């Protein structure tokens, strides 16, 4: 589905991401982990077109999408959430999702029906008429997911949607993603610090540190890698 090939991104003197390559196979759930400042969100920004990489390519289903605008990447089938949630504050929760849904239909009425279903799925149905700006943080994160889902993606990029959730909320969201993956065949690439979610969801984990890919493999392999333990998880995680 997605192939990131030797992507390098600088911010002036700083190399945020250096020669990073990994693949996300169709139908899989892959996690991108690493300490703060490792270049995870930058990788997302390169994939979804907010940033253009200095070197390397991003391919979606064999098509080069490097350097396309975010809206073009969205039309190619990539939905994303933002680490710092960006609710359309003045619009209702339902209308936020309707905006996403208008990617696949021009009819507002159709988009509203689809949006209501997605709100059900993410447990936001009772908030549908609330202004998005007044949602709590966990609700905002779920709204991010709902809106991205409404655009009908084949690949969903999730940027720390579990942060700040209680364990039972995390489990509920994990279950939602599992169902989406299993029932709709949705491919997911997620950035996550909550290891509980990473271990439960992903089949494959990619670890970044200082912009460099230091490890990749199954969750079990990765958490046993001494380098990963040292820079990110800490000894006690073993």
């Amino acid at each position, binding site marked *: 589905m997605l192939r990131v090939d030797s992507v390098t991104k600088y911010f002036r003197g700083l190399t945020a991401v250096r020669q990073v390559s990994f693949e996300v196979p169709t139908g899989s759930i892959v996690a991108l982990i690493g300490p703060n400042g490792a270049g995870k969100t930058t990788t997302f920004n390169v994939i979804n077109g907010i940033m253009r990489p200095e070197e390397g390519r991003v391919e979606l289903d064999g098509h080069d999408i490097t350097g396309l*605008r975010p809206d073009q990447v969205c039309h190619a089938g990539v939905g994303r959430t*933002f680490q710092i949630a960006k*609710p359309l504050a003045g*619009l209702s929760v339902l209308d936020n999702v309707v905006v996403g849904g208008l990617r696949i239909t021009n009819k*507002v009425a159709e988009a509203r029906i689809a949006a209501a279903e997605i709100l059900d799925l993410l447990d936001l149905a009772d908030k549908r008429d609330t202004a998005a700006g007044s949602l709590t943080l966990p609700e905002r994160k779920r709204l991010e997911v709902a809106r991205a889902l409404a655009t009908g993606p084949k690949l969903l990029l999730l940027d720390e949607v579990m942060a700040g959730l209680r364990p039972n909320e995390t489990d509920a969201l994990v279950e939602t993603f599992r169902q989406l993956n299993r029932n709709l065949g949705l491919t997911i690439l997620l950035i996550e610090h909550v290891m509980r979610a990473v271990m439960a969801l992903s089949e494959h984990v990619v670890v970044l540190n200082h912009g460099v890919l230091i490890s990749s493999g199954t969750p079990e392999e990765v958490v046993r890698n001494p380098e990963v333990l040292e820079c990110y998880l800490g000894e006690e995680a073993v």
Partner: protein
Amino acid sequence: MIAGLFADVPARGLVLLAVLAAALLLAPAVAGDYLLSILILCLYFSFVGQAWNVMMGFAGQLSLGHSLYVGLGAYTSAALFVHYQTVPWIGMLVGMAVAGAAGAVIGGLGFRFGIRGVYFALLTIAFAEFTRVGFDHFGWVGGSSGLFLPVEYRHDSDLLTLRGAPVMFYYVMLAFTAGALVLARVILASKIGYYWQAIREDQEAAQALGINVFRYKMLAVALSAALTSMAGTFYAFYYNNLYPETIFSMHKSIEILLGVVVGGLGTLFGPIVGAFLLTTLGEVMTGVAEHIDLDGIKQLFLGLCLLVIILFRPAGVWPWLARRLGLGGRDDA
């Protein structure tokens, strides 16, 4: 189509709307010359306010140079009328194209180079200002000494050439205002409206949701400019004289947006409520000022009133009024 227009308006709102429409339709029968001229002003500002609201209220793009589009519309249709006896309605269409193109140029420059917010607003001022200077030296339309339409005193009205009594102008402006309201409502409930609002709220989020931000912002500017220019044509044929110093002035641009801000930015009825409120207030202040012999007392009072309104109703008068009238929390009822 017509039924859909009123689909989610509460019954109370429909009644109020019908009463308001009837009152406005019958007003010329009871209003004297003075009152009629005030009502024309109210409608004029309702209309240009709505046009400006399309760009700022819906799509979130601040323009402080909308006098540019009024001026272009006015000069285009007036010059075509004076030089070629072109029917004003044709002139209006040409004016809309000219203003729409000017809007597209400003938008194209601003949006292409990522100029946002107040910086974009400065760009709109700059264009209005140098167009004003340009027209000062544009001999074909009279330069700084102005362009005048032949005035005929007549009691019959010729709608085709827009020559006639104030009553005709009143109904023309009423039709414009009603048309703009319907257009705004239809667009706001459509995909375009949703996309504009998404861009207004958060441009990055909008783009990640598949919205071609550049294209939709361009559409907002061009449509807003074209609508605004219709008011320019009206202005030219109603007042019969045009001076670059007046029509392209910063003051005119501010006048256009004040009513919207007071009435309720981004709402459908805000521009109308704001226009009626400010115009009436302005007239009352003029009356008061006549009794107090102090220079600038009118502006002072008007400024104070604005301050009070914006302090106590920062979201505008209409959202609050709508709730008081029992039209629910929805601001587009």
